[in-house]
Structures are given as C-alpha cells and as structure tokens.
C-alpha cells in the first residue's frame, strides 16, 4: 500500500517536472525576446563573474547558486594555430543527459573544440566549466570525460576485455571487479564472449563498439565522440547510431558528438551546434535547423535549395510570382525567403486561395524515395519541390505550388556586401526584438 503510494507520488512528481519542463520550453519559444536578453544578461554576469572565477581558480569551484550553474558550458572558447584562427569565441551550454552534435564541414574547428573539451588541447582564451568547476587547468584524466576517436584505437597489446577494463585499472580497481564490469559492459554492446579476443581479430564495427564500451565503463560525466562512425560503411552506421542512442538512454550519459554528416547529427542529437570557419552559426534542435535556419549558409548546409528575394510587410511576403503569407515573425523591407523543397506541395487544380503560385514543371527527377521536381513561375521564379513518387507530373504541365505559411522562413536581406556587416548587426537587433529563438548565445 505504502509502496503504491510512493510510486504514485513519484509519478505526480514526474508529471509536475514534465509540466514544468514543457512550460519552460513554451516560454522559451514564445518570448525569445526575454530569453535573448536573459542570455545577454547571463553573459554580462559571466563577464563580471570572471574576476571572481579567476580568484577561485585555484580550488576550481565557483561560488554561485547551483540553480544557475549549467551542467557544462564553454565560454568564449578561442584557439588558433600559428596565427590561423581555428575556433573563435565559442559559447555553448549543455544540459545534463543531453545529446549535442557539433556539426560542420571538415576544418571548421569542431574537432579542435572537442579536443579542448577533452583537455588534449589548451585553449588560447575562454573557459570550460563542468558542473560549475573550471576545467582549464584540469588534466585530461581528471575531467571525468571519455573520448572515442574515429579509429577506435584499441590498445593492440591488450585483449578486448583488458581494453575495456583499462580505465578501471588506471583507477586502481582490483582485478576481479574490473573484469566483471568489463564483461558486463561487453554484454551491453552485444559483444559478450569477446573478452579474450585479440583486438586485431575484430571488424571495424566491433572495434568501435569495444571502444564505446571502454569509454562507458568508467561512467564518464560526458562522452565525447569524434566522428565515431565515419570509418564505417552505411549499413553498419545506422545500427551503430541505434546502439549509441540506446546506450545513451540506458546510461543517461551526456553526449557530445562531432560529425560532418548532417544526417547523422540529426538522428543522433537533441540539439545541433553548427560551426562554420571556427564560429558557431546556430545552436538549435534539428527541426529548427531544417525549418528555421539562421541564414542562407545554414539552410544550404542542411540541403536547402529554394532561396528567393522578397519584399516583406509584416506577415505578407511579396514574391516575383505573387503574394504569400507566413506565420514566421513579422518583418519589413527586403528579405530572403526559403522553403524546404519537401514542404512545397504541388496541386493539379487550384483548391484554396492563399499561398498558391501557378507554376510550370520544367524537370522531373525520380530519386527512388522521392520525385524531385523543378518548377518555374510565370515571373521567372525557380522552385524545387520534392513530392512522393506516386504523384506524377509531366514536364511542361502547369500546376499550383502550395507554400504552407508555416513552411516559409525569411531573414532580412543585406542590401549589398559592403553594408552586410551593418545588416548583420541589424539582424541581431531584429532577432532579439522579433519572435524567434535560436539558443546560440553568440552566433555571429
């Protein structure tokens, strides 16, 4: 009876938590103005805190309220190699148990960032905090993080079981206990019975699973994965993604994954930090990065193909082919508009009145899972629409392209390149005023 009651109480508490959480996210969505300014305030606070941090750096603890201390955060992280900047002014916060992907093209500084987090590289400037503890001066082995590299790197002079037990041995755990834990961990990655094998006998996927087990067995606070799947072939990759997700759910470990593959980042993470040229461009949920990119570069990285200029007047966008309405935040003046090609619907007849553009089909490409159609309006606007293969349109046929109001996304268009800097700063101002939230504390 009392047990039941306990469970019910637990449930109520959980529900309460959930409610609170959803409310939090709601408030985040709605009042980004408040959030961004809050961000600004917290940045300022951190700046003023810096002196205090420096003072307490010797014992490595900041004396601030636990509620305000993020689980893990990077502040102003900067690194350059021989004068060439690799990572510039990166600010990032990660919640406990979160899955974050550091995404970007090769050479964008994401691996450098990860190495600084792991403690392998020393940042030129900036701070790394884990649970409020400044990590800059902490040796890599004392950071409570485990790194899995692309190559797996199983120690060739140790057996599979000894490899998994390596971290435990370094911590001085006795032989029987660490062997037990290693075997249990190997079971978890579906490699039970492999403990006595030689690492050279394993396939690439198996080696990578042992590497995962070896990192997880030491129960790190953060698991850092550096391109863990890029050496594997496509079919193996998806099953490894599933395994990583399952292990993350089972252990609740915070996950930071570095990858150049946007499809992988989307599947594996709750939130993606997109990096270009050493700078964070947008930190957001995968959905937002697809539907509400910060700029054309971000949109193109996620496979955006439809970009056109328009004149905005509140929620109305005047395109060369006609007027459309958007549910995105209201704007004025010249803007750049994007719409995901899979969100562009194609109708044979005019059914409803709004957001319909009469188009001609100029190209029809069958890709197996989708049909890629190139469309052109009478005013010369080019559009891409990805439709299910069952919908067949012939080249030259006229149809109506429906651009759903919630699929249209826009940002102010810089007047010309010389004025782009001004436009960017204007954009930031507008963004903090507008109803839009990107959680990157510093994007530009």
């Amino acid at each position, binding site marked *: 009876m009392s047990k039941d009651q306990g469970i019910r109480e637990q449930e109520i508490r959980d529900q309460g938590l959930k409610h609170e959480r959803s409310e939090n996210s709601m408030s985040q969505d709605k009042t980004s103005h408040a959030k961004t300014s809050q961000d600004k305030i917290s940045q300022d606070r951190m700046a003023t805190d810096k002196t205090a941090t420096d003072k307490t750096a010797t014992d490595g603890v900041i004396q601030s309220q636990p509620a305000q201390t993020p689980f893990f955060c990077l502040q102003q992280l900067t690194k350059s190699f021989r004068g060439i900047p690799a990572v510039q002014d990166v600010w990032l916060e990660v919640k406990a148990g979160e899955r974050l992907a550091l995404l970007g093209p090769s050479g964008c500084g994401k691996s450098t960032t990860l190495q600084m987090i*792991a*403690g*392998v590289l020393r940042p030129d400037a900036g701070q790394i905090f884990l649970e409020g503890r400044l990590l800059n001066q902490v*040796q*890599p*082995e004392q*950071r409570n*993080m*485990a*790194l899995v*590299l692309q*190559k797996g*790197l199983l*120690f*060739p*002079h140790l057996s599979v079981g000894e490899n998994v037990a*390596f*971290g435990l*041995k*370094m*911590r001085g755990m006795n032989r029987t206990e660490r062997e037990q834990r290693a075997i249990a961990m190997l079971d978890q990655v579906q490699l039970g019975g492999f403990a006595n094998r030689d690492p050279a006998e394993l396939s690439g996927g198996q080696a990578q699973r042992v590497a995962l087990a*070896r*990192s997880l067995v*030491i129960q790190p606070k953060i698991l*850092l994965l550096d391109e863990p799947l890029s050496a594997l072939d496509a079919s193996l990759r998806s099953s490894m993604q599933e395994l990583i997700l399952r292990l993350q759910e089972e252990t609740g470990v915070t996950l930071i994954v570095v990858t150049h593959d946007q499809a992988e980042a989307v599947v594996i993470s709750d939130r993606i930090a997109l990096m270009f040229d050493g700078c964070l461009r947008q930190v957001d949920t995968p959905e937002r990065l697809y539907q509400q990119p910060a700029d054309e570069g971000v949109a193109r990285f996620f496979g955006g193909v439809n970009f056109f200029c328009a004149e905005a007047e509140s929620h109305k966008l005047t395109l060369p082919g006609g007027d459309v309405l958007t549910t995105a935040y209201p704007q004025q003046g010249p803007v750049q508009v994007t719409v995901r090609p899979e969100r562009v619907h194609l109708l044979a007849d005019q059914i409803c009145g709004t957001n319909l553009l009469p188009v001609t089909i100029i190209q029809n490409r069958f890709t197996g899972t989708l049909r890629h159609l190139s469309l052109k309006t009478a005013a010369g606007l080019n559009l891409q629409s990805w439709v299910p293969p069952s919908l067949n349109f012939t080249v030259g046929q006229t149809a109506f392209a429906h651009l759903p109001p919630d699929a249209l996304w826009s940002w102010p268009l810089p007047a010309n390149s010389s004025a782009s800097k001004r436009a960017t700063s204007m954009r930031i101002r507008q963004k903090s005023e507008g109803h839009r939230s990107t959680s990157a504390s510093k994007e530009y």
Partner: protein
Amino acid sequence: MSYTATNSKARNTTRKLFLWLIIGVLFLPFLPLLIWSFAQDWYFPQLVPQWTLEHWRTLLTASTKVAQGFGQSLAIALLSTGFSLLVGMPAGRALGLMDFPGKGAIKLFLLLPIIVSPLATLMGIQFMLIRLGLSGTLAGVVLVHLLPTIPYMTLVLSSVYANFDPDYEIQARSLGATSFQVLQQVTLPLIAPGVVVGALFAFLISWNEFLLTFFVGSGRVFTLPMVLFTALQGGNTGLTAAIAITSILPALVFLFFSSRALNNDAAIGGLGNV
C-alpha cells in the same frame, strides 16, 4: 580448406628451409672455432683432432683475464645501452613525432659519428678526457662508447616513434591514465619491439668496440675484445678460439630472448631508417 592448409604447410617448410640456410651460412664459420677450442693440436694430416678441455679450463683461470674482461665489457655495454636509451627515447620521439625547423640537419648531425671514422676524432677526445681525468677510467670508456651508440639508438627509435600513433596516448589519458601510467601501460608496451632492437644495436656496438676502448682505456680498462687481441698475439689458437666463442655468447643470449620481439613489424620498421 584443405588446399589452404597444404599451401600454408608448404610455405612453412620453405620458411624453415630458408631459416636453416641462413643459420648455416652465419654459423658455419664458427665451426672451426668450436673445434679448435676443444682440440689439443689440429694440424694437416690429422683428420680428427685430439679432444681436450684444457683451453676452456685455462680460460677460467685469472691469468687470462677473461673473467675480468667479460665483467668489464658487460658493465660498459649495459651502461652505454642504458644511457643511450635515456637520451635516445626523448630524442627519437622528437624526431619521429614532431615537426620542427632543422630536423633534417639534426638527423645528419646524428649520422656524423657513423660517417666520420673515430680515428679522426680520437686524438682530440683523448686530450679532453685526460684533462678531465677520465682517461683510463670506466666512466671515460662508457662516455666514448656513447659516441656511436646514441646516434644508432636515436635513429632506430625515431622510426619506431614515426610508426607510433600518438592518439593512443590521448585515448589513454581520456580514459583516466596519468602521464606516467600512459608511458608505462601504453607507450612503452607499444614501442617495446623497437626499443629492443635499439638496445640490441647499442649493446653489440659497445660490446665489440675495440679502438675507442683501447685508446681511452689506456690499458687500464680491459674489455673482452682486448683480451681476445692479446690472445691473438700470443698465438695460442685453442685459447683464442675459446675466447672468441665466449665473446659471441652474450649476443646470442640477447638475440634468443629478443627473438619474440624481433618477430614483429614494429621492430623491422625500426631497422628501416638505419
């Protein structure tokens, strides 16, 4: 299945044949030595010598100084190997893993003691060592033995390190190993075969060194090659043969124990640069 089995079996036999051929070519010249060391007198008309253990018994007496020479040779060789390891490990790591200006020049500089005959530098060295009071001492001899051993050791270890992936160390650190644990548990086991090769080189170079020891030791440091030299001048074939065999024993023992390490790609890779 059976095909591959017979194939590997055939390959195994060929390998064994080659091995014995190599052993034969290498060890055949030692056969006369072996016979001489056990023969009373062995001259032309005799087909079979008169066997005796006399030479080996003489060898063990103090008058031949074999025991003393053996001990001094061993001490000098082990010390030179140890010191050249101490220098060669960090130097080899720097040359093998790091990129810095002047790397090529340093490699060339390391080759100089091998290129230039020690005879050319010996007078200067001797002059210096006399002033330092090291001439005729064990320390002085060890010091000059480092001249050829350090370059060999450094070059062998630099190519060993060039084949070593430093990410293993990063991986170990992130798993909680301290830098000392990384060295002890990861780096050393992984480069061990190469280190064995380097140590073997250094040991043998020092063990067989005659000229440098002869000059710097000034007759007071008496190593096995010098004992052998004296015996050769004495003209006792049997005793000379016995000393010669004694002098190759440590190398054989060393080779035997390191054969497992040598049977390794890393070790062979270490030889690539020499």
